[in-house]
C-alpha cells in the first residue's frame, strides 16, 4: 500500500513544517494570530422541508441501527459525537459497532473529544471501519495515531476550531448522533435533567445546525415539549429511545477534580497571588479555569480573596464544578457562563439557578462569530505539557513524541486579557520548560505568564505585568532561568526520533495548520 502520510511540507509563520494537502484536502499553513480571514459564504446545510417529516412530530424509530440506516449511513461518511458525558459516554462506541456490523468502511469519526471509555475504537481503526479521527485523540487512541497505525491523518481542533471547521465546510458532517439525557419525540433535547443528567449539550450545537442528518438518542423520553430545549427538534431527523444513555457519575474525570497534591495546590496559590498582585482580581473581574486539577483549584484561592475583600466577580466561565457553584451560591460571582459541566453540582446549578448560564463554542470561542467571549475575559488559567523559551506551548503531545491529549478550548482561551499557565517545572524527571516544544499548539505571543513552583516567568512582551510585579515577594524569574533550573535538576533531555510520516494535523482556531505531529519511532 502506498504511504499516504508522506506529504509535501511547507514552513508556516512559526517555522513549523506542515503539509499543504492532507486527507485529500488543501491545507493552509498558519499565518499568524488574526491573519487568516477567509471570504465568501459559510457552508450551508442541505434544504429540507417539513412536509417530509411527520406532522404529529413523532420522529421515533425502533433503535439506533434503524436510525443510522434511515440516515443513509455508507462508506466514507463523517459521523459526529460529543463529549458531554466525558468518560461516561455509552453512545459513540455503539454507533461504530453498528457500522461495523453493517460492513461500512472508511468513516471519519468527528467527536468533540474522546475519552478512555472509547479506547475500544482502536479495533475499528484497525479494521478500516474508521479511517481517521478528527477531534481529540486521548490515551490509547493517541498512541495508535502516533505510531502511524491510523489509515487517515488525524486532525486536532479546538472547540472553537470545530465550530469554525463546520462553518467553513472544512468538515461536512453527514450524521450527527446526539446523546440526550432528556428529549421529546420531536427531537427537542436537554442535558440538565433526566436520570443521566450531564449538564450542557453545547458541543452538539454546531452539529445539530449543520449536519445533513441528526439523530437524538435518549433514555428519558418526555411528552412534547422538552423544556428547556438546548437542542431544537427542528434540526432533528430521528429520535431513538435506549435503556441507558450515559453514566453521569463518570463526567467527573481526573482532569475535572480539584487536586489534592500539595505541590499543585501551591502552584494554584502562587497563581492566585500573582493575579492579586497584578491587580487582575478586582470587583467585577472575570476568569476561566481550564480542566486540570491545578487550574481548577484557582477558584478556591480567588474565593478566599473575594470574600475577605467583600468584592465579587462579574462572571466566571466554566467548566463548571462544585467550587464555581459555591462561588455563585455564596454571591462571589454574578454569573457562571458554562461551556461544559464538570460535575453533578454543576448540573444541579445549571438546572436550578437562573444565573448559571448555558454557553456554546459559538458564543465562547468561534472564529467566525462577530466577536466571542474569550477575548473579553480578564484572566484564564490553563495547563500545558511543555512551554518553550518563546512562551509557545504544547497541550497535545508529551516530550516522548506521543499525541495523547486533545486541544479542548485551550487555544480559544489564549485570547483572554491575561493567559497564565501554572505548570510544574518538571514532571518526574521530565522538564516542562524546554528549548522547543514537541508540538506547537499555542503561539507565545498569546501566553503571558508561566507559573512554576520554583519561579514565575512573565512574557517580556507584557511590560505592564512586569512593572506591576517588580516589588513582588513572588519568585519572578526569566523563562531561561526556569529552563536552566529544570535541566540542572533533571539533566538535559534528548528529543524523540520521528519518522517522515505525518500522523496528525494540529489546527489553529482559524482552520490553518499550526503544527503537524509525526510518526513516533519506537
Amino acid at each position: 500500500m502506498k504511504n499516504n502520510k508522506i506529504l509535501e511540507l511547507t514552513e508556516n509563520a512559526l517555522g513549523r513544517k506542515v503539509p499543504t494537502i492532507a486527507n485529500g484536502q488543501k491545507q493552509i499553513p498558519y499565518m499568524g494570530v488574526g491573519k487568516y480571514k477567509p471570504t465568501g459564504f459559510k457552508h450551508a446545510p442541505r434544504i429540507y422541508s417539513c412536509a417530509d417529516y411527520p406532522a404529529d412530530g413523532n420522529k421515533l424509530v425502533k433503535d439506533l441501527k434503524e436510525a443510522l440506516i434511515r440516515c443513509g449511513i455508507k462508506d466514507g461518511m463523517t459521523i459526529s459525537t460529543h463529549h458531554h458525558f466525558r468518560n461516561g459516554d455509552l453512545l459513540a462506541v455503539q454507533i461504530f459497532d453498528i457500522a461495523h456490523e453493517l460492513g461500512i468502511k472508511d468513516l471519519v469519526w468527528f467527536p468533540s473529544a474522546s475519552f478512555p471509555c472509547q479506547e475500544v475504537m482502536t479495533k475499528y481503526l484497525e479494521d478500516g471501519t474508521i479511517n481517521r479521527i478528527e477531534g481529540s485523540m486521548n490515551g490509547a487512541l493517541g498512541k495508535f495515531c502516533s505510531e502511524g497505525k491510523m489509515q487517515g491523518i488525524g486532525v486536532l481542533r479546538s472547540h472553537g476550531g470545530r465550530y469554525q471547521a463546520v462553518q467553513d465546510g472544512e468538515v461536512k458532517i453527514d450524521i450527527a448522533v446526539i446523546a440526550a439525557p432528556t428529549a421529546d419525540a420531536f427531537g427537542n433535547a436537554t442535558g440538565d435533567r433526566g436520570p443521566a443528567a450531564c449538564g450542557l449539550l453545547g458541543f452538539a450545537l454546531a452539529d445539530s445546525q449543520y449536519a445533513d442528518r441528526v439523530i437524538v438518542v435518549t433514555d428519558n423520553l418526555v411528552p412534547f415539549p422538552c423544556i428547556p430545549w438546548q437542542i431544537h427538534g427542528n434540526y432533528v431527523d430521528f429520535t431513538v429511545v435506549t435503556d441507558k444513555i450515559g453514566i453521569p457519575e463518570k463526567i467527573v474525570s481526573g482532569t475535572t477534580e480539584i487536586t489534592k497534591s500539595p505541590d499543585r495546590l501551591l502552584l494554584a496559590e502562587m497563581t492566585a497571588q500573582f493575579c492579586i498582585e497584578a491587580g487582575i482580581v478586582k470587583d467585577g473581574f472575570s476568569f476561566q479555569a481550564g480542566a486540570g486539577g491545578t487550574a481548577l483549584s484557582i477558584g478556591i484561592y480567588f474565593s478566599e480573596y473575594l470574600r475577605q475583600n467583600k468584592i465579587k466577580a462579574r462572571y466566571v466561565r466554566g467548566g463548571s464544578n462544585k467550587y464555581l457553584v459555591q462561588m455563585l451560591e455564596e454571591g462571589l460571582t454574578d454569573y457562571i457562563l458554562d461551556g461544559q459541566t464538570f460535575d453533578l453540582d454543576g448540573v444541579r446549578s445549571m438546572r436550578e439557578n437562573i444565573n448559571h448560564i448555558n454557553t456554546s463554542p459559538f458564543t465562547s470561542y468561534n472564529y467566525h462569530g462577530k466577536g466571542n467571549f474569550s477575548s473579553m475575559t480578564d484572566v484564564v488559567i490553563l495547563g500545558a505539557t511543555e512551554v518553550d523559551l518563546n512562551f509557545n506551548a504544547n497541550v497535545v503531545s508529551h516530550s516522548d513524541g506521543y499525541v495523547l491529549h486533545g486541544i479542548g478550548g485551550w487555544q480559544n482561551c489564549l485570547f483572554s486579557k491575561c493567559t497564565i499557565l501554572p505548570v510544574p517545572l518538571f514532571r518526574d524527571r521530565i522538564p516542562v520548560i524546554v528549548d522547543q516544544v514537541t508540538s506547537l499548539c499555542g503561539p507565545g505571543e498569546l501566553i503571558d505568564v508561566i507559573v512554576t513552583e520554583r519561579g514565575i516567568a512573565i512574557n517580556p512582551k507584557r511590560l505592564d505585568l512586569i512593572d506591576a510585579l517588580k516589588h513582588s515577594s513572588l519568585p519572578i524569574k526569566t523563562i531561561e532561568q526556569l529552563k536552566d533550573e529544570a535541566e540542572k535538576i533533571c539533566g538535559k533531555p534528548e528529543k524523540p526520533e520521528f519518522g517522515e510520516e505525518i500522523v496528525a494535523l494540529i489546527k489553529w482556531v482559524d482552520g490553518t495548520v499550526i503544527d503537524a505531529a509525526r510518526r513516533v519511532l519506537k
Partner: protein
Amino acid sequence: MNKIVTTGNKGKGIRSDCFVTLEIDDSFNQEPQIEISSKVMVMYGKALKELCSEILAFYNIKKAKLILEDSGALPFVIAARLEAAIKMISDTEKNYLFPMLETNDYQTAKERRRFSRLYLPGNSPSLMINAGIHSPDGIILDLEDAVAPSKKHEARFLVRNALRNVDFYGAERMVRINQMPLGLEDLEYIIPNNVNLILLPKCESAAQIQLLDENIEKIKAKYNINRPIWLMPIIESALGVINAYEIAKASPFVTSLAIGLEDYTADLGAKRTQEGTESFYARCAVVNAAKAAGIQAIDSVFSDVSDMEALKENVLRSKALGFDGMGCIHPRQIKVIHENYAPDAAEIEKAMKIVNAFMEATEKGLGVVALGSKMIDPPVVKRAERTIEIAINTGKLIKNWRESYEKQ
C-alpha cells in the same frame, strides 16, 4: 558464586524512584550486562545507561547483570539505589558521590525559628524533591519509623544523596536517626554531608546524648568538620519525661526538646485524644525542662492532615503551653502552623510599643527604657524584637513599620 540483590521501589503509584536488581555470577561475561526500562527512556535512556555503567565501573563490578526499572528517578536516586545494591554484594569503602550542591552549603543558628519541620520518609524520593518549595522551617529526612527494617540500608544512601543533591531552599536540614544504638550507624552517612540537626528518637537519658555527641565529634574530626551539628532529642516515654531536663542540658548542641506523643501515650497505656489531657503533664514537663535549660520546646505532629481547623486549634493550644513549634507530616500543614505560632495582633502591638520605646530611648541616649511608668528590662526588649522579627517574616508586619508607627 551467584548472588542477587534488589533495592528501591517499583509498581503502581511509584514515581521518581527506581528498582534495581543486581546479580553477580562467575559464569557471566566479564563486561556487566545492563538492562533498562524507563518511563523517560526517550529523553534519558542514554543518560541512564551511562550513569549505570559509570557506577559499575567505579566499583569495579564485573560479571554482573543489572536490571534498572526506572519510574522517572533523578540521578541522585539512581546512584543511591545502585550503590546500595553494590554494597550488599561487595565489600567496599568507596562512596559514589555527585558534587554537593553549592546552595546546600549552609549552617543554621541554634536559636533559629523552628515553627515547622516537615517529616519526609527516608526511602521515598518523590516526597523529598519538592519538600523545600513549601518553605518549612526545617525538613526531616526520617530514617527511623518511616523506613521498614529491611529498607534501612538503602535509605541511608538515599538520605545521604538527598542531603548533597536536593535543594531544600533554606530549610534546616534535619535527619531523624534510628534509636540508640542502631542510630550510631546512621551518622557516617549524614555528618559529612552537611546535616544541620539530628533528631534522636526515644531519648531517655543524658548518657544517650553524650554517647551520640562523642560519636558525632569523632566523625567530625575524621572529616575535618567544624560547623555545629545541632541535636533535638525526642522525648517519647515516661522515663524520658522524667529525665527531660538532664537530657536538655546534656550537650551544648542540644537546641530543643521535642515530644513524641504517639509513643508516649502507648508507654502510658493511655489513648491519645484530640484534647490531649493524657499528655498534659508530659507536655508541660518537656516545655518546662526545655525552658529551664534555655532551649526550644517542640510539639508532636498533628496527624489529621485533612482537618486544618483542628490543626489550628492544636497549634494555638500548643503555643499557649509554651511550645515554639511542631512537626508536620503534610506540606499543607506548614502555612497553618506558621500563621498560628506567629505572634497575634495583640502580641505584635505590645512588641511594637516596647521596641519603639527602646529605640526612642537609644536615640535620645537614655540608658533606661520606660514604657509609661514601667521600666523595661533588656530580656523583655530582646523578646519583643524577636516577636517583631517573626511578625515581619510571616508577613504580619511590614518591614519599615516604625515609619508609620511614629506618626500615630
